[in-house]
């Protein structure tokens, strides 16, 4: 007997309304949201979805590898803050529930593009080109994933979104053929509204004075400059600790193994923490230290700024653009330059001066600014 499989009706667009005049259609590839723990690109994707929904000017549909994913499931995952259930539902019910995307509709990839030239109009997002210009800091599989098809990706894009001017400049230097079809897609920091209240009801974190460092622990994050500076007299005599948030990544085993007891006293590794714990740790810090050699954007810096914390950052890539005057900068390869900047940053007057600039700087980046370039592209498509 042939069993009839009932195909569910097509899910409505996010807005819940039929396609309306003046609204543009867009398919958003949400592969990053299928991950369980959202950091980095999944969070960027989540913010992009929310920005476009808030704009009210797009009829959004979602897909993964050109298979449509019902909008309510995506929005449910966003409210849950994890892609675990979304991935499970996608894998278990793909054969009976999923439909192919409408290829006449423009498609936007928030990260690496997976299908080339499949849709009428295509855009992808370049976060950074570190896998191309500093491959030694990545595992080979990661380099291949990001760079093997980059050429094809760019060639088939009608629009290439770059997460910062620095990323745009880097991309255009290495792929001049993209000049003229790039646009900046800045993201922003957003904390759940309940966090300040929740924080207020808890005791202060009992670590003493500390600076916060955020990011997966890997060579590009350049923790070694802090370790080297700890041996310098001006840093050694300070009682400031460094709380490092982030999981242990790749190619850093040796660095961690070789840490001295003195260094271990000054560096506290929290591992991966929840958003709320991260919020608490940033809020309790004197300032943020961001020693990375290279970042596409550097969202932790904006998160710190949004909580009034200035940033002591490497003078590289996107940092001056993102942090502006609310921070101090140092040469990321010079421990003595870092030490000098750290001493300056520790001065109460300097912290006060920069803290006043921090929150206004973070407001440069908001959901409207994130949505606008996508809307502009859709208007032109």
């Amino acid at each position: 007997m042939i069993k009839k499989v009932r195909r569910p009706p097509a899910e409505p667009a996010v807005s819940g309304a039929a396609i309306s005049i003046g609204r543009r259609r867009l398919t958003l590839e949400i592969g990053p949201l299928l991950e369980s723990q959202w950091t980095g690109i999944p969070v960027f994707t989540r913010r992009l979805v929310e920005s476009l929904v808030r704009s009210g000017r797009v009829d959004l549909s979602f897909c993964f590898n050109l298979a449509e994913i019902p909008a309510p499931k995506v929005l449910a995952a966003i409210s849950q803050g994890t892609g675990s259930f979304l991935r499970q539902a996608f894998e278990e019910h793909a054969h009976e529930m999923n439909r192919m995307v409408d290829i006449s509709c423009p498609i936007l990839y928030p990260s690496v593009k997976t299908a080339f030239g499949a849709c009428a109009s295509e855009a992808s997002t370049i976060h950074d080109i570190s896998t191309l210009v500093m491959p030694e800091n990545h595992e080979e599989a990661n380099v291949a994933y990001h760079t093997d098809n980059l050429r094809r990706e760019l060639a088939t894009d009608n629009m290439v979104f770059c997460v910062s001017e620095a990323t745009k400049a880097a991309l255009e230097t290495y792929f001049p053929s993209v000049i003229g079809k790039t646009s900046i897609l800045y993201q922003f920091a957003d904390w759940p509204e309940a966090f300040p209240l929740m924080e207020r009801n808890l005791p202060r974190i009992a670590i003493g004075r500390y600076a916060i460092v955020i990011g997966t622990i890997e060579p590009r994050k350049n923790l070694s400059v802090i370790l080297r500076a700890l041996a310098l007299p001006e840093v050694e005599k300070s009682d400031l600790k460094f709380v490092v948030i982030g999981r242990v990544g790749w190619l850093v085993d040796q660095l961690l193994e070789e840490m001295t007891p003195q260094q271990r006293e000054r560096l506290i590794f929290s591992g991966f923490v929840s958003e709320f714990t991260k919020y608490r740790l940033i809020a309790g810090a004197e300032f943020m230290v961001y020693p990375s050699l290279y970042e596409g954007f550097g969202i932790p810096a904006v998160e710190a700024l949004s909580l009034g914390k200035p940033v002591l950052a490497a003078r590289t890539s996107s940092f001056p653009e993102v942090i502006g005057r609310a921070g101090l900068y140092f040469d990321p390869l010079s421990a003595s330059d870092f030490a000098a900047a750290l001493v300056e940053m520790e001065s109460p007057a300097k912290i006060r001066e920069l803290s006043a600039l921090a929150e206004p700087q973070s407001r440069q980046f908001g959901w409207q600014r994130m949505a606008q370039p996508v809307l502009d592209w859709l208007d032109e498509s």
Partner: protein
Amino acid sequence: MFPTGLVVSLPSREMRAMILPGALFQIADLAGQPLSGTLRAALRLLDETCRDAGQRLLLIARPEIFIHGDSRAWLMQQLDGIGHHLNLSDGSTIQLVAGLRNHLFFYNPGLCRNMTAFERFVGRAPEVPAQIGMQINTAFTFSIGQSLYAPQPLLLQTKNLFPPGEAEYRIFYLNPNSVADSIARIEAAPRITAEYVNGFTDITYIPFTDTAASDASFCRLVVKHILAAGQLPKGMLILGAPLAQEKRDTFSEMMSVLLAGLIRCGAVLPRAALPNVLITSSLLDEDVFARADRRCRLVMHETFEFWRCPRRYYERFETLCVAGRPGGRHDRLAIIDLLAEACGRVPDILSVEEEQKASMRRRVLDD
């Protein structure tokens, strides 16, 4: 050559083990840093070149991080008018500095992993080579779509052999079933002295590179030389083990690379110590070839770092031969010009694939 001075970017893979004073530094700051021999030689060459021309030389680590806005402005301020950037590339990437004239020195194609990485990189980012003004000591061509692009080759050559120092000699013995056994027996054999070499008047010298050892056609050519060496009572074949890449690399490890290449190529060699064949640990000094009663022949693989030897070095050889694969990345005429300039005369270019075909034809005719 670089009238407004030169900033040289270093390969990041080698820099991982270095502790630098900052992103910009002087060549003297590299004293005592763990550099490979080839990188050290390349830096010495650039230092010599700039000093001779009275031009400024500055080194930079990670130029890619100063790409935009304030960080780029800071870099430009530090460069203070330097208009040329030379990337010392290990093949894993090619660094560009926007706004400067970019040049490339792919300093060690003799290391197989570098060559593989280089091919992969230019495949991934084909628009990069088109932005290269000059290529130092290579004559590569690149394609972008249907177009071919060849940066201007520029010869930079050392005035003195680097590294100087006495080469060690070992007997040649190959157990085709075991590199380890071959090395053990070579190491156990009595050491060969330079006096032993003095007894021979007809010397063929074949310095290997790691890439040459993985080139089966080249290895088969070497096997022919090994077999031929035994036929001449005064003939001596000296095989140069690939040069050590890291400080920890030992002569035994470098000999292993050479022997493994010969085994992999599938040719048959007698399992015996051959009195007319030796292996040596480093580039042989020109004095070895300087004796008036000697006829010397040099056979180089196309990836041999010819720029590490001065022109007078090549003058010692009666015959110069470069073996390579046709259709490789080098432009044939341009590389011949470059080698002719380096050697003081046009070397014989031996296409190893053609050599193989010729050898097969001869065999068929003989049969």
